[in-house]
């Protein structure tokens, strides 16, 4: 069995690398989708914006520099295996990785406290950021996803506690309204995640997690998959386009997560990602073997 101290170092180093990859390298599926939008750009103004975006993303990957100055708020999504030897210590290790990545990548210091000011290291002195989504799974490895999400696309998120009578149609119209209202504010073309049901907190989390699905990967349930496609088509009828120039594609993909709901409630969360959807993943075995996911 590996020394715990060594494993801790491996996790920390891996998490720093994940944050670097997330900030500097747009996932390949997102990049390919943007190139597709570029090919289809109907006007010169749309083409210019999408060209700038694609070029910026390419330079970022090549030069290992952050593609956007807003390197966001950090969250980690963890699937911890039953036999993985580290548990509660993980949070402190990942906080330390965040501090290091802030200096080494570098990331912009983005954690501001009303009383204490900007902590300067992307770690909230009150312990909430980075935020951890933790799942417990069988096996002896841990899977870590680092997600950094910018403020511009977070500011346009919407929570609706709708009347159940409006049904799915009302839910999807609410999501379309959210895109219309967002307009160019959150840097389109957008990824849109829609979380339906659960509760006021659960639908937002489901919506955010939907953004992690590969572009074009439809929901396993064919009925929900159909809604994703229709909603995307509907949203792309809005004349927003790259950076709001008024033409071209507004939405890269729409992903829905559905949970059961209270009979009296119809919660819906709409979470956006700007074109710079940033996440990176790796798994680490209890023996310290690191496997990075393709990015």
């Amino acid at each position, binding site marked *: 069995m590996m020394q715990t101290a060594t494993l801790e170092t491996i996790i920390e180093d891996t998490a720093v690398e994940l944050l670097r990859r997330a900030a500097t390298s747009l996932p390949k599926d997102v990049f390919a989708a943007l190139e597709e939008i570029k090919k289809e750009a109907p006007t010169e*103004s749309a083409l*210019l*914006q999408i060209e*700038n*975006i694609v*070029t*910026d993303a390419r*330079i*970022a990957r090549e*030069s290992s*520099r*952050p*593609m*956007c*100055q*807003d390197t966001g708020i950090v969250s980690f999504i963890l699937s911890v295996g039953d036999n993985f030897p580290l548990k509660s210590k993980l949070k402190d290790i990942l906080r330390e990785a965040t501090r290091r990545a802030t200096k080494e990548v*570098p*990331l*912009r*210091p*983005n954690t*501001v406290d009303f009383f204490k*000011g*900007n902590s*300067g290291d992307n770690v909230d002195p009150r312990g909430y950021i980075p935020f951890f989504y933790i799942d417990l799974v069988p096996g002896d490895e841990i899977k870590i996803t680092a997600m950094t999400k*910018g*403020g*511009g696309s977070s*500011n346009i998120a919407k929570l609706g506690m709708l009347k159940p009578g409006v*049904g*799915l*149609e009302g839910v*999807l*119209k609410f999501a*379309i*309204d959210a895109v*219309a209202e967002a*307009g*160019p*504010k*959150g*840097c389109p073309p957008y990824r849109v995640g829609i979380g339906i049901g659960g509760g006021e907190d659960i639908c937002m989390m489901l919506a955010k997690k939907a953004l992690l699905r590969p572009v074009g990967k439809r929901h396993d349930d064919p009925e929900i998959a*159909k*809604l994703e496609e*229709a*909603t995307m*088509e*509907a*949203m792309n*009828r*809005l*004349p*927003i386009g790259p*950076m*709001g*120039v*008024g033409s071209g594609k507004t939405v890269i993909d729409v992903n829905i997560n559905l949970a059961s709901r209270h009979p009296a409630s119809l919660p819906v969360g709409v979470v956006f990602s*700007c*074109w*710079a959807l940033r996440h990176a993943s790796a798994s680490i075995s209890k023996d310290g073997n690191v496997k990075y996911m393709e990015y």
Partner: protein
Amino acid sequence: MAIYHLRLPLTEEDVKKLKVGDSIYVSGDIVTARDDAHKHALHLKEKGESLPVDFSKLAIYHCGPIMRKNEETREWEVVAAGPTTSSRMEIFQDKFIEAFGTKLIIGKGGMGPRTTAACEKFGAVYGMFTGGAALLAADKVKRVKEVHWLDLLGMPECLWVLEVEEFGPLLVGIDCHGNNLFEENAQKTRDALPQAYQVIEQIMEE
């Protein structure tokens, strides 16, 4: 939809000839300012205190950059510096333009009716840089000239005075003739909602 290459600060004639839809590239000095910097600058002005920069001669850039101090030269360098969402500054911008006589605002995502009115009344324009394109922007910065309020406001919020060359293209989104490209597009988007709803209504009937 003309393309212009202009020196900063813009002259009155420059401002007058620009129309929404034009593209401009600017060279000269710009200063980053976001929510807190606008608030603080207006607060100092109100109290009659002096300001560290002359906002009338600088273009305002809605941007919270990533900066790094070069270990050897001890000089600041720009790592990434794309625009931030301008609509957050809508609550300050008209007062800011009036107080300081700023002629060019750079950001992304557009601004609202208050800024449009101030641009028309006091002669200013708003130009959009591609959102998120932080490296394209950073690579147009020749030099970091000054920094102010770093300790007070922190790296993203403080004032960075940057000398830029051919900074652009900036899409003119608000001109001094009362036009606002983003407001026009927002209206078109609202008008297109029934068309978008139709897709959902159809699929629900199936």
